[in-house]
């Protein structure tokens, strides 16, 4: 898979994760989703795609 395709897929997953983070009422699941989002933010960072230095800032501005 090309880098561009990987990055697009990460964006799609993160958009879905954002919904889960916002809507879950279970602390245990909230932490799971947040960790997943953090790692995907990192995967983008390591591939040179950066908007903000931490995922929380992106969630705040979206």
């Amino acid at each position, binding site marked *: 898979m090309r*880098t561009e395709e990987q990055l697009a897929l990460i964006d799609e997953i993160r958009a879905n994760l954002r919904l889960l983070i916002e809507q879950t009422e279970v602390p245990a699941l909230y932490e799971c989703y947040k960790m997943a989002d*953090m790692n995907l933010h*990192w995967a983008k*960072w*390591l*591939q*040179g795609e*950066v*908007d*903000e*230095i*931490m*995922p929380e*800032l992106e969630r705040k501005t979206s």
Partner: protein
Amino acid sequence: MAVKFWHKDLLEKDYWNEPAETMPREKLDELHLKKLKSVLRYAYEHSRFYRQKWDEVGFHPEDVKTLEGFKKNVPITDKADFLRYQEEFPPYGLTLAVEEDFISHQSKTSGSTGTPLHIPFTLYDTEKYGESWIYGFWAIGIRPTDRFYFAFGFGAYAGFWSAYWAARRLGATVIPGGGADTEGHVKNILSQKPTVLIATPSYALRIAEQAKEMGHDLSESSIRFTYHAGEPGPCSIDAIRERLDREYGAVSGELLGVAELDAIAPGCPHRRGVHMNEMNTFSWTMAPQSGEEVREGEIGENVITTFVNTAQPLINYTTHDLVQAYNHDIPCGCGRSWRYLDGAVLGRSDYMVTVRGTNVYPSSVENLVRRVDGVSQYFQLILSRNDSGLDEMKILMEPEKTLQIERWDSLGAEVQEVIKDNIGLRMDVEVVEPGTFPRTELKFKRILDKRPQEVRRRLER
């Protein structure tokens, strides 16, 4: 059949992250500018320290359009800035950029310059910090299938914890050795059969020596790699690399870390220097006197901006480490494009030595000795290396001529106590007769370095 976590073809890769580690300089610089803009904006919006500091000098993050502009226009910071604010408003001063309840881990520096610096990390910070080590692990052949033995207790220092974060992130086995004495570490190594030893270089040699005293040769043990930080190690000093390799019959590696910044530079696999982790840091070399950037390959201070520490951002932060750095035409030949520090740290612009694993600034010891009534201006700090490979510092001092001989012993004990209380190290103190030191020298030689030339940093020889 047991579950396997890694595919063999991934384990056989030469790099932990090849696209990043071999990224062309132009692309790296383009990325740095993007990240720096993001960090500057973040710090200005969230850290009172930076907003105040930058507003005072009329700097605004939007002023930065190029990397050159960043180096020239962003005010330099150093540890003293942060210490001052932390002392005034403990525990973190105005330097935090996140809410306190967002902090997941607190470390501190050793306090060898006086007061320890508190270092807050978010969870994400710790994950990124740990990963920095992995680039160096992977480069010399360490893999997730390895078993790490940690020959230290987990105190407050970032170095120990970050090595643990690294092994966890790598997915390797962690065998903690906390609580064991040196003999216990030998026994643990022999019985638990780790393949990687994590320790300071001097302590690793001490363990090997202890093993010999117990009748064991660790070069025949399960250890295949030793990895080190905290003191000049295998990528800094040839004699140390050769001795570590020989004692363990293994490949030794070194990480250059700066506690408050990151595990900034994992060792080059060719082991004559280290590469700055350019995913996590942006750095350049500054002439200590002028503050100007030096030319590639010239010695100067390593000035770093970390992308790791978001809890307490550190921007254009001078480490006072003297380095000889290359961004282009990297001489090591390992294939990595990341900024190369030949010989790692060559010295300190503020001259620091490492005594039994603790960083010590002779100038701070000097100031402490001066505090004690009854000590004359004639005293000397003598640095030597003991048989176990540990650096030692001894203080030889003349009392004031007026001090009665019966009080000399208590004077020595008082000096020892002041140093122990402030630096945490017990140093030998010897009181010698007034007139012992020659008075003819133009400048009194305060520090006498008796360590063999080959174990000193290049600029300290």
